[in-house]
Every structure is written in C-alpha cells, then in structure tokens.
C-alpha cells in the first residue's frame, strides 16, 4: 500500500502544508510572501499546483475526494498569505505612524498675542451691563467749561466742594478746563437731549484732577449714569445699583447704602459692596471695615434741572414733575479690585510686564 498513488499524494500534500505553515510565519516582507506564493500556489512551479496536476494519475473513485482536499489546501494557503500580508501592512503603517510621532509638549507656532487694556475690558463690561438694562452710552468731551463741570452741578465759584476736585485749566480766555468728573457729561446730554425729560444714559470717560502722588493719577476714568423721568425714585436708584453691582461682581456680595453729600444730588447716597477680597471679615483692601466704597449716587438736585432749564430757556425738566437719579464710579477702582492691582499708576505707565498679564 506504500506505493498507493492516493496515499502518496496525501503524503506530499501534508508535507507541503507543514512546510508552508513553518515558512509563512517567518515571512516578514512582501518579497518573502511572493516567494511563498510562487513556491506553493504559483501557476508554473507551485507545489500545490503540481499536486493538482497529478490528480489525473489517481483512480477515478479517489480523484474527487483528493481534489476537494487539495482545493481546500490551496485556499488555506492563499488565505494565510493574505492574512499575513495584511498583518505586515498593518505593522508597516504602525511603524510609519510611530516614526511620525511629535513631541506634544513642545510649544506651538505662536499666533499673535496682543491684548486690550484692563481698563478697556472693565469699561466694556460696565457698558454691556447698562446697555442690557436699556441705557444709551454717551460720550462727552474731556475739555469742558465751568458751566458744565461745576456751575450747573450746583457748585458755584468758591464752593467748598471744588476743593476736592483741584482742576486743570487751559491757557487762554474762556475758562476752559479738563473735566474733573464725568458728571459734566450728564449736563451736556440734558442740554442736547432731543426727547426731554426722558434720560437713561451712562457716560464713561477720562477725567482729570491736579493730584499726582502714589495713590492718585492726574488722569483716571469714571463712568457716570443718569436716569430722568416722571416718577423716578430713590427705590429705583437702589434697585438699579444693586442689580448692576451684582452683575458686575456677583450676587454673593451684599450692597450697603448710606447717606452722603454731593452738591448735585439730594438726597445723596453712597453704595458699599461687601469686600470681594476678604468676604467682609476685614482686610487691607477694605481697611478692616468689610466694606468697599464703590459708588456715589443720589437723586438729581432740582437745582441741576433748573440750571439746565435756564440754559435751554424753557422748562424742559420741570422739577415739580420730573425726578431722576445719578451715580458715578471709578473704572480704575473696579479694575483694581477685580484684578488685585495695588497701584493706580501702573494703569497708565504702558509697561508690557503689566499689560501682558491681561489676556484679551
């Protein structure tokens, strides 16, 4: 039976299979795989191809089963070759990706990094809060006259309150001056207002005082608010300022009102905010009081309406009919509180070491 052609064929097929199985896992590149393909299933010299050619020598009754067996062998070999090829390709792709690895901790290619001034950021935040509350942002001139800056604000010449606002004057006639407060702008608006007595404005801008020491800058920035109409009350002032301060600093801080004095408002109240640094327990920022003085305000003094009416030559803001409130705060102060800036003069020194700390 040893020379039984069927058995011989089976032996040769088994040997081919064993040889292939050993060789395929050793093939590590496309050329080796091609060589295996040629040796086992190649059309000319493949071992399995040769076995299939020899099928004809078998007895007819054995031919069918042996053929099926050889076909299965050929398919297994071709499948194994494809599988191996895919594995090799995956390995190569993986190696290529590994070779393309970058150091993700290296810095990126920088895009330009400038920035807006912190006072700009704060001013725009303030503007946005008030615009959302129905205010118009109104911008007045920085050079003013005595009427707008003092007289119409119930501060006639020799008024003691003028001592607190030492004023820069321009050379030449006309008594022109640099405005000492943005309150001057509320007068300008009321005079120019096309729809008196209705007013709801804020006026941000630069103001100037003849102070130059460690805690003062001769130029700084304020924002003034003015609301005028029929039936405007001190309650409206309180509510508006509470809403505003809570939007600006957060609702967690208490707001305190206390009476004060400004010549152009009566009654006058100052608003204090629970210290955002210490939470009210007392610290250097709030001078151990737990409160930050943040804003001056009050009900528009009828004398202010009367001064505007005199200039207009008509009773556009009748103090018997019309009331209003005004408030003012320092933009610098808000910025210094928000960012923890300890010296006002840093704001105006154009030092990049300072400016670069404020991303836009």
């Amino acid at each position, binding site marked *: 039976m040893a020379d039984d052609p069927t058995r011989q064929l089976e032996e040769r097929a088994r040997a081919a299979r064993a040889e292939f199985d050993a060789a395929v896992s050793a093939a590590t590149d496309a050329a080796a795989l091609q060589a295996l393909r040629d040796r086992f299933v190649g059309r000319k010299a493949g071992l399995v191809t040769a076995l299939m050619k020899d099928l004809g020598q078998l007895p007819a009754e054995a031919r069918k089963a042996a053929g099926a067996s050889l076909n299965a062998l050929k398919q297994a070999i071709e499948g194994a070759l494809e599988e191996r090829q895919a594995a090799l390709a995956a390995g190569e792709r993986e190696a290529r990706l590994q070779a393309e690895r970058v150091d993700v901790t290296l810095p990126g290619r920088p895009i330009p990094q*400038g920035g807006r001034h912190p006072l700009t950021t704060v001013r725009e935040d303030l503007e946005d809060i008030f615009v959302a509350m129905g205010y118009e942002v109104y911008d007045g001139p920085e050079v003013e006259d005595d009427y707008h800056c003092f007289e119409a604000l119930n501060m006639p010449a020799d008024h003691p309150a003028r001592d607190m606002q030492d004023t*820069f004057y321009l050379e030449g006639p006309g008594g022109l001056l640099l405005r000492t407060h943005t309150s001057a702008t509320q007068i300008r608006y009321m005079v120019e207002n096309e729809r008196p007595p209705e007013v709801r404005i804020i006026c941000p801008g630069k103001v100037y005082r003849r102070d130059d020491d460690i805690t003062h800058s001769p130029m700084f920035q304020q924002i003034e608010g003015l609301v005028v109409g029929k039936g405007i009350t*001190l309650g409206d002032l309180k509510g508006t300022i509470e809403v505003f301060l809570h939007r600006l600093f957060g609702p967690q801080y208490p707001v305190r009102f206390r009476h004060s004095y400004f010549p152009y408002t009566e009654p006058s109240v100052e608003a204090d905010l629970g210290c955002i640094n210490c939470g009210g327990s007392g610290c250097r920022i709030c001078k151990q009081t737990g409160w930050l003085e943040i804003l001056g305000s009050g009900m528009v003094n009828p004398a202010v309406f009367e001064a505007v009416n005199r200039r207009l030559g008509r009773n556009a803001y009748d103090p018997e009919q019309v009331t209003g409130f005004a408030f003012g705060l320092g933009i610098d102060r808000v910025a210094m509180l928000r960012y923890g800036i300890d010296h006002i003069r840093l704001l105006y020194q154009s030092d990049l070491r300072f400016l670069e700390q404020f991303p836009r």
Partner: protein
Amino acid sequence: MKAPISWLREYVDVPVEAEQLGQDLTKVGLELGGLERVGDDVVLDFEVTTNRVDCMNVVGLARETAVRYGKPLRRPAADVAESGAPASEVLSVAIDAPDLCPYFAARVLEVKIGPSPDWLRARLEAVGVRAINNLVDLTNYVMLETGQPSHAFDLERLPAPGLRARWAKPGEKLRTLDGVERELSAKNGLVAASDGTPLALAGVMGGGDSEVHDGTRLIALEAAYWNPLATRRSARSHSLHTEASHRFERGADPAATRFALDRIAHLVVKLGIGSVRPGIVTAGAIPAARHVVYHPQRTNRLLGVRVPEGEHRRVLVGLGFGVEGGGGSWGVSVPTWRGDVGSEIDVVEEVARHFGVDNVPATTPPASRPGRLRDDARFARRVRELLAGAGLHEVISLSMVSDAAQRGVADARVRLANPLSEEGDALRASVAFPGLVQALQLNQRQGRRDVRLFEVGAAFLPAADGGRPREVRRVALLVSGPDPQARWSGRREGADFAELKGLVDGLVESLGAPAPTWEAEGAPGFLHPGQSARLRLGDAAIGWAGALHPDVAAGFDLRDAACLAELDLAPLLAARAAVRFAPLPKFPAVSRDLSVVCPPGLSAAGLESIIRGAAGPTLRHVAFVDRYAGPQVKAGHVSLTLSLRFSDPDRTLVGDEVQRALEAAVQALAAAGAEVRGVA
C-alpha cells in the same frame, strides 16, 4: 471730627456701644473714619461732609445721635453768675463791614491764667488739640463742643478799649499767632482795635500783639459770625487753613456766638479761673431763621415709599427745625446752625436720612427705550479687538504731554495754564507721538526689544475760533524690535515699514473701509523722510505712518528702530461700505506671474496702475509676491514679481485674450522704462 464717646454721652443717652454708634451714624451720612480706644474711653473719628459743619462739634454729633435713637438731647450748661462792673464800661464793639460780619459779640472776663485741669487737658489731647493755658484751652474746648470759634484778647494790651470788624486796607500789616508778619489785602477781614489797629485775621487766626499770656488779667472774649465766602477768600489769600476758618468757611451758627460766650463764662466760674463781668456787648443782629415750605408728599414721592406723617415731624423737630401747620403743606423754620438748608429738597434729605435708605424698597424703573452703544463706540471696540488680535497691546497714556516734546507735531497746540510739571504742560496733539514713543522707551529700558503697542484716544487740536479744542478720536500704532511670532519660522529681522503698512492696511480692510492711499510726501517731520507716508481716503488726509526719524530716535535713546502710525477714526467709520455678496465665479480664472525690473522713481503703485491700464478689465487682481534688489539688477533698480489673475464673469477667457493683455502690459511697462524679465 474726633469725638470721645464719653463727651457725647454728656448730651445724649447712647443706647449702643461705640462701634455700633459709628456704624449707625455712618448710615445717616456721618461716615466713621476711625475708632481709637484711649484709656476707658473710645474716640470716634467721623468724616464730616463739607455741607455739615454743624456736625463739626460734639453737640451736633449728639443731636444726630439723639434723632437716630429717638432720645432727648441735653444742651451744655451755660448759666452765668456775673459780677463786678458791666462789661460795656470797659469794652465797646462795632461793625464797619456788615458784608464781612453780620453779628459781633463779646464778654469781659477777669481771669488768672494757669494750666487747665487734668480732665480738660486729657479731653483736648484725646481729640488731637494741644493744651496751652486754661483760658485758651476753654475757647478750644467750647469750639469743639458747640462749633463756635472764639478769640480771647488781652484787654489791657489793646491800643484802644474797643473791637471792630472791618475790611483790611491793602498794605496793612499784621503779625499772626504763628509768628508770620503778613501783608494784608482788601480780601482780608479784620478784628481791629477801636483806634483801627489790626488785631486778628477775622475768622482765621489771632494776632500776636494782643495774645493772652501768663500775666493777662482782663480778657475781651470775642465770638462773631463771619461771612463764609469772605473767610474762605481771606484764608486762601494767605494759604491758611485753621480749625476756625474751616468752620466759618462752611457756615457757622450765628446764634452759637452768644451761647459759646455764655458756655465759656460758665466754665470760667465753675472751674475757678475767674469772674465774669455782667452783660454781652454786641453789634449787628443774628440773621433771622429761614423758612421753607415743605410737602411731606414730596419726600414720599421721591423715595417711592410712604413715610408716616409722625416720622417726618419727629425727624425735623429732633434736628431742631420748627414745624408749623399740617396736612399737605408745612411751614418749616430752619435752625440757625443749618446754613446748608435753604430749600425744600434740603428738608426732604433730612427726613430721608433719618427715615433711612434701608427702609426704602428697591425697585427698578421700566426701560422706555432699548439700550444702545453708538456706532463710534462700537467701531472703537472693533479697532481694539482687531489690533489686540494682531499682536499689539493696548496702552492708555496720559493726555498731558510735554509741549516741547510735541513741537514737531502741530503748529498750534493746547497748553495748560496750571500744569503739574513741564512734562505735562500741554494736551497731546497726537496720540502716537510722543506718547507711544515714550512707552517704547520705557519698555526698552527694561530690556524689552519686541514692542508692539496701540492706543485709541483723543488728540486735542486748538479750535480756530479759540473755543473748546477739537477732540479728534484716533488710533495710534507702534511696532519695534523683532517680531516675536517669527521665531519659529526663523525670521528675526526687526519691525520695519512693511510690517507697519501691513498692520495699517489690514486694520482698515477688516474695518470695512476702502484702502487708503499712501503718499510719500507730507508726513510729519519726526518721521524718516524716506520711510514715511501721508494717508488719504479720497480727498481727506486721515493720518500718517512711517519709521521714526533716526535723529528723533537718538533723542529718545532708542535701541531699536520704531515704526508708528496714526489714523483718524471718524473718516474710516464714515467710509465703511455695506457688504454685498458677489456671485461666485462661474468661469475659471487664468493666473500669470510677471517679473519686472523697475527703474528708480517708478513706485509699486505706479507699476500697478500701468499694468491695469494696459491689460484692461479682464485683469481682476494684482498681487505683489516678491521683491528683489541686489547684484542681479542695476543699482537703484528693483525687481518685483506680481501675480496677475484674469477672469470674466460671463465667459471663459481664451488663451489669446490673456496673452494679448499681457503683451499690452509688457509694452506699456517698457515705455515707462520697466523691463519684463519673465512671464510664467
């Protein structure tokens, strides 16, 4: 105003501790500025606003305390046991200037000068007043207590036995208590002896010659009401500010004159310092109380809450106001110590203060119109965002600059009459110069090389009619040093004109305005004459740009060159065109590159204009992509490479058309002396 709580308690029952009292009075308008323990006592320091001189004394603070807690106010004892001959036998008083002094009063005291008792010295020292002798200390004590300054003259040292209030004559002289010999002017009010000799600067400071000394036996004690404005001007004319002038300037209590004299006299007897001659000698009259019509409803309307009628009355009566009538309209008489109250709104404020802002419910007024940021403000925001995004940092510099430093900026400038220093004696006529250059200088001194700054703000230009200066809103830019973004790409050269121009044109384009024209002539003199331009939009000059002149840069001791520009914002805002969508091209474009060697004098703008003119309307787009000057071209010449794009919205261009357009351009360039090196 410092007040020991023990002193306050003499005149009002304080139902709370000192800290609470401080907080409560802060709410009614007397802000606590400090609190200090002195032995068993607590000294409260109140920051009294300028209108409330009536609270610059213990009784005034006690009155506010009394109203705050609903307690009665006790007045200091001022009954006087008089003895001897009437005062009027040894002293007369007169007023020569009623506009200076409406009321003048005096008493005559016989005293033995010595040290004050310990309790009095301690109380004065607790509030920061130096003890001198018993009589001077008493005048200070009673001033702190009642608010009325008074002055003691040594009656036997007066050149004549009378006192009169008058204006000084220019050239008169007076040696004041501080030892200064002062030349007087018509602004100064005087207490003079009846023979005319100046004795004291009225309401401000006494004179040295009539000063009380250890041997003084007979005292003329004066207490007058001095006109606030007169006192203010007089004190200012000598740069003086005293406890007395502080009070008179703000309006003292005319009726307190007599009370203070009585109170001092009472204490002189009580403390065994001496005796009091009968009578007060006076001149003039205490001004009558003012009357105001008050409508409680006005307060209620203004506060937005109904204050009970009894509360209106309680507060006003407690503060010393007389209240008559009822219903809707009250007659209110104003106490003499409340010179700040002159109209109904002042009365409203008094009721509001003590009713308490905390009792007013918070409301918000309904918005009548939508809120609005004006176009120019929105535009300025956009400018800031764009420049910050382009790598520049915003600065805000002082509007005051040295006029000498900005001489080259404008012929006419706005100068300050009272500058703080020469460094800031004018308003800036330019935002960029010298402001941004000084900012660069500061940063370079700190070792910083790459500096890119911008500022948006006003430049101040004199008005032609001499009126209010024009405030022109501008944007200014400065670039200097290596571009910090270029490091990765290896480009390390410093800022130059091209970087500046790129920033300016990019900014203008992003703002939606048409590209400005860059003209080589007409830039300011502080710029490099060969690297600067005047910028135009249509016919209007809108700014300038260029490298800082090397001589100017040397003057600022700059390490790196700087390029700066300044543009008016208003014309850019006005020139913005509405964006309109253009249909996407249906037909392909044809691109060609052109290398041209330009002779000296032919600018890039001229080159582009020649090419566009010759090539016709199918040339849609011209871009400069490379520039070369060096050994490959003749000296003074420059080789420019342009990328040209041809298209037609209605059809596909055929090769011949582009070729003909190019040939026309090449011929026109040749006619202008420019040689085309290649077309691709």
